[in-house]
């Protein structure tokens, strides 16, 4: 099925709640309300014609200008060999979306990664904790306004400039040439 056909099938089931396909800049996508994402995903998986049996990617994009965080679901159907992209737009201050872990098991780790790096809370996730960073890390590194803390448990996150105190080689030769020229000048004619 093409993207349009999939969108029509979803629209036939959910009506008003499903918008139109976004302007097709390369890959089209469909924006759905955050509250309905579990219902829509469950339908997408269980419907015979759609049969999206695999969540192949879950990512999120930070848009400080729009004050939004987008969570992006890339669905794939091994049975029907077609794909689809769902997006959920969340408030940047409090990004919360229901977890789809109960539908696809692969969402477990993928959601944990976005929780860790982007700070999106997936409600209903059975084991939502940081995955890449330590438990007590401050901040979410993939946010656009992220500032790294200077140290973590006495381990510094910055490094001294090892080149400090050293002089560039060409500056040394320049200085030597200048000294030689000055010495030459001082010599009696």
């Amino acid at each position, binding site marked *: 099925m093409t993207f349009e056909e999939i969108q029509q099938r979803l629209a036939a089931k959910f009506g008003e709640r499903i918008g139109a396909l976004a302007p097709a800049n*390369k890959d089209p996508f469909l924006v759905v309300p955050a509250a309905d994402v579990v219902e829509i995903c469950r339908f997408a998986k269980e419907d015979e014609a759609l049969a999206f049996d695999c969540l192949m990617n879950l990512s999120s994009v930070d848009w400080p200008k729009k004050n939004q965080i987008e969570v992006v679901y890339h669905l794939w159907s091994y049975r029907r060999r077609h794909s689809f992209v769902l997006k959920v737009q969340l408030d940047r201050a409090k990004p919360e979306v229901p977890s789809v872990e109960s539908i696809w098991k692969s969402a477990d780790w993928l959601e944990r990664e976005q929780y860790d790096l982007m700070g999106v809370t997936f409600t209903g996730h059975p084991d939502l904790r940081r995955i890449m960073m330590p438990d007590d890390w401050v901040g979410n590194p993939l946010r656009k306004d992220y500032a790294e803390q200077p140290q973590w448990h006495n381990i510094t996150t910055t490094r001294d400039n090892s080149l400090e105190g050293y002089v560039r080689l060409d500056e040394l030769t320049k200085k030597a040439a200048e000294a030689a020229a000055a010495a030459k000048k001082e010599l009696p004619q």
Partner: protein
Amino acid sequence: MSKPLEVPTMDMENKEVLRRIEIGGDMLLNMGPQHPSTHGVINFLVQTDGEVMKRAIPEVGYLHRSIEKIGERCTYNGFMPYTDRVDYIAAMFANQGWAMAVERLLGLQVPRRAEFCRVIACELNRISSHLISVGTMAMDIGAVTPFPYALREREFINDLLEELCGARLTYNYLRIGGVAFDLPSGYEDKVSTFLDHFEKILDEFNRLITYNEIFIKRLAHLAPIPAQMAIDYCLVGPNLRASGMSFDVRKALPYSVYPDFEFDVPVGKGEVGTPGDAWDRFWCRVEEMRQSCRILRQALAQLPKDTAIMGKVPRKIKIPEGTEAYSRIESARGDMQYYVVAGPGENAHRVKIRTGSFTAMGIIDALSRGLMIADLVALIASLDVVAPEIDR
């Protein structure tokens, strides 16, 4: 001068993961992070009361280098060497995924000869990556001999790739719109000489280890993954195909010049045990090397004579903000996917790399329940996870 470091302290009592598991009277073992058989820096928290595990919880992140964040700061071209570090055992594929994603953003056409160069480089890299995988897997379960055999063959490929691009591990060979260098003169002959030699070695390798009775007894029926479970956990590549699911991105969603070549997709059938067991995953990789040889021979025979290796790439790559592209390629570790959103300037707004190892690690907790500790090592090896690819 820097101050002497104080000894770092970590609040072990309050670790999130420990609050979430009931230990009771069981023993909690840290397997890793520095452990020779975990294939990189990964920690497994093994809950056990003897030889049989209750569960093993993977703790990843030790190799997290924020490559996705680096991708937001580099220019599109400048990010290419970093993609090598996503998966340094099969760096060519990470290159290709990134190149294809940006080419899709730009709507670029890659010259046909460049596509052939890419296929040749990638298939050579696939063989070398699978050699590491099968060699270390045999070694992890106690058969040391096949490992140097596999590494010896990998050296030939390293030499070939070094001749192609100057590097033996992190190649940085692909460019957006083409490849960095054309094939050196006489390269076709060298590759086909290697293939003549290597195809015989594959048979020898099969005699040595794949159909070895002890090896089969060790791995057959071990941690079988049913196809439905593999799809649910989003396993990809040889791990998925070993479970009986015939899916290869090169066949199902053809890219580059792969439609021109004839090759089979090896699928696990449970020849010596249950379909989807550890031996099937091993066998799938061995067979894939044979298929890669077939592809290489065809690519060498059909190599176009024209000399263009770079497409028409603008000097400054600028893409309208918010444009997004998705690329999928068949890496040595399966379906590798790049999701790229273009930023306002010359760099991306968001890069997301979905790798095979990451999702493969997610299944270990579920599979490990009731497994022996020694079998956990075989399970990790059979999934062919590479630590940098998990953490990125």
